[in-house]
């Protein structure tokens, strides 16, 4: 499947590159604050997906223009219109495939359950959440299968923001909250909730993460080069080492959480 999608992407890129103009650099943006997938705290490290793009560009001799932080919907709009070349980290949906080109999956995002430690429970499967009151951030999908199960069997509210979600978990207004594992961990730490909120070990779901490319970019040949380099990085283990770097960082945070 991956080979077919790569071949399709290359074919599309070749077609688009025929009409492309020369360009100096590829513009990149990402969903801000989505640690460890995309984040801007350190100019050397843009999160796993950001680092994959910058490293691949570096290896391919392509210049990167990191665009300022703007709302996520505007990032998607810019990618569709060709005002942005690359999104470093996006989930793939059927609708999005009509609008953008995607790399093969380079990583995955894991959704976990966050609970108040005195309300902790054993979670192995979605049915363990029945009879409990949970929440996720508004607009967030749990993955198609989990969404379907949740609709039919669970009570999951929408929180307006990650901050609200974790505050409601900490105050006991919710039995659990569902959020991205590592991003949630960082949020827990940021809000000084490490003594109050635990993360359950079994994930709710795993969603593939992709680099998204604009179909209307004027830099199609560079995009082809970059995508090829990303594939090479997958094969030679460079991507895995980037992931490991962040995971060890998260693990150290996790240890701090557990030791606190």
């Amino acid at each position, binding site marked *: 499947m991956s080979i077919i999608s790569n071949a399709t992407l290359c074919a599309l890129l070749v077609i688009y590159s025929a009409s492309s103009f020369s360009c100096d650099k590829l513009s990149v943006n990402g969903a801000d604050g989505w640690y460890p997938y995309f984040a801007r705290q350190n100019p050397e490290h843009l999160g796993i997906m950001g680092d994959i793009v910058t490293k691949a560009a570096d290896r391919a001799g392509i210049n990167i223009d990191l665009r300022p932080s703007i*709302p996520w*919907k*505007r990032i*998607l*709009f810019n990618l*569709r219109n060709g005002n942005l070349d690359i999104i470093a980290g996006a989930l793939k*949906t059927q*609708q*999005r495939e*009509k*609008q953008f080109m995607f790399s093969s999956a380079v990583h995955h995002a894991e959704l976990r359950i966050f609970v108040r430690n005195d309300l902790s429970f054993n979670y192995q499967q979605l049915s363990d959440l029945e009879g409990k*009151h949970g929440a996720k951030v*508004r607009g967030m999908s749990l993955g198609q299968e989990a969404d379907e199960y949740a*609709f*039919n*069997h*669970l*009570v999951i*509210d*929408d929180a*307006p923001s990650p901050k*609200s979600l974790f*505050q*409601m978990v900490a*105050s*006991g*207004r919710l039995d659990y909250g569902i959020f991205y594992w590592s991003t949630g961990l960082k949020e827990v730490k940021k809000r000084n909730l490490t003594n109050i909120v635990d993360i359950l070990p079994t994930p709710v779901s795993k969603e593939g993460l992709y680099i998204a490319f604009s179909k209307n970019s004027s830099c199609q040949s560079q995009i082809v080069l970059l995508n090829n380099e990303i594939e090479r990085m997958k094969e030679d283990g460079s991507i895995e080492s980037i992931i490991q770097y962040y995971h060890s960082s998260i693990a150290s945070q996790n240890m701090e959480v557990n030791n606190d």
Partner: protein
Amino acid sequence: MIKLFFGILFFAISLFNVSYADELFYGVSEEIGDMTSSTSSKRDEELFLTPLSISIVTEKQIRQSGITTIAEALKLVPGVIVREQTNGQFDVHIRGFENIISGAALTNLNNRKTLIMIDNRVVFDYFSGGIFWDTLPISLEDVDRIEVVRGAVSSLYGANAVTGVIHIFTKRGQGGGSIKTSLMAGTKNSQIVQVSAEKMFADVAIRFSGGSEIRDRYEKKYFSLLDRQYKDPDDIDLLSIVNLHSHSERAVDKHSFRLTVNNDPLDYLNYDLSLFHQESDVQKVHMNSRDIPLTDNISNTDGFNLKINYGNWSTRVSHHFGKQEAVGFPDFTYDTQISQASTSYQLKFPKWLIQPGIDSNRTTYDGGFIGGKRTTHETNYMLRVEYKPKREWRFISALSYSDFNAPEENYLSYQFLTTYQLSFDTSLRASIQAASSSSFMVNQYIDIEFTFPNDPSQRVDVKGDKNGRLSRMKTYEVGMRKQLDFNNFIDIEVFHSEINNFTNFIIQPPVMIDGQSVTKRELSNLPLKGVQDGLTLNWIYESGAWDFNTFITWQNTEVFDQAENLIQGAETFDEYNNSTPKYYAGLNMNWQLDEAFNFNVLSNYLHTHGFELQEPQGSKETPSALYTNLTLSYQHSARMGGFISIKNLSDQRESQHFYTDRLEPIYWLGFNVKFGD
């Protein structure tokens, strides 16, 4: 009629079915799509999916458009008619449907069919029914957002939410500590000062705010109802009023203070207390004067509102008390006390949400016109149920059984709603709703023999009926919201409303008693029925620096079994009613020139419409007019900014209301500064 609705809806869907949007862009409208409403379903939900026709005015929109009063901010809302009576004093109606009783008294021009709430506290005048915008104990600086629901929603909020609800949400302390001052000055001696200060103490947020406002009227003359022309106050022979206010040129003089104390609203146990005080002296269309349309109303009230949430329980209590005085009408000075309490719970199951609740409203007035101290109370037993058989489909029913101490009859209000998300960028809604008004002190308890102070040969005897029935409205509505593409969003609603169960003071032929010509008026049932069909279209375009919000409402109102001038025994007839403009529209265009400068144009159009009152007040036709305001604002930094605004640039010099002030252009200059975090 239902077929017509669906016909129009499906036509609209097919018209806009060429979509370039995908789910990514749903709600692009970074502001609209991400907005939530808590008035439509009594809990937070995405605006896009709300089952009722609703619009939200944000603090940012208010600031950008140079708005200076809360009522004026409603010019930004589709389906709302806003008319200025004097400088800064407005009359607001949702979808109009007003003044349909031909030959009624001047007091009937007050909007008795829209409920106003501040942070869930009902703010309504139960004297003769209506909205007293001048007595709201908040200033514009306190407003966080205003949610406006169009439709009959008594089943959610109790009596008087007949044509809709205007729900004002106010600001709370946001952490840190800061002091903010806003100064505005305009022509016609218009001056507004607003100050707010906030500070966190541990997890408790405290915010204090105060506002002071004075404005002069647009003109010194009043319209003499007897002479049918504008005249100097000294040249008007007063018949029903003892005296005019000594400051006849002053339109508004009001002051308010407010203190809020709250903890984090996301805590399991959270509380929110506000204490408030207001004083105002405002000229507005209020009393049934036979001399001039405007009456001076002096108000002085205090109160509190306390909300406590414990998990899924929500409880609220409030009390406010004070004094109202209609200058020149000695019998109409009264003390008022209004106590409210409500509690509700949310039960959640997969696919189901059940919200039972009770609320109670106890109103006490003490005044000569009602023979001393009178109390009415209303208890509403409410149940709202949501069921989602499919992810995209939702059914909602809400019932409210209203138990009044008077009248003896109890009333059931209901909502049956459904929403269907046709695709990621299209949502449909349909509703059947029924609502009722409450009774008012004048209707229930008035029992006076009023001899005209300046013509003792004439007397009017007015008698109410505490068991007078309450007017009811049914509304059928379908609507659609669609995100056409990244920049364009439309919201269409088609509605059909029927209102009946009216009462009013029927006039009996004059009789001579003890040398006086006595006219008796007794509260009686009217056979009258009003029917309104309409359509509101709202198109929003957002493109970074440019935003357009355009809306238009078309409506047609017919009245059946109208009684000529409310005279006893008069024959009834059917008529087209033109009290609500057939068309009314608005355009709010905003251009963010750069990070500092913002340019805004706000235009409102009112089609020709009229007022039909009893003699000697008579009738009035208001010609079609377009009113345009321009505002240029400059934000020097997060701490400092200002604006220049020209209101009524289109130089319309007509009275917008019933022979109230003829408007003039007015120029404003504003400055704001913030100290602290």
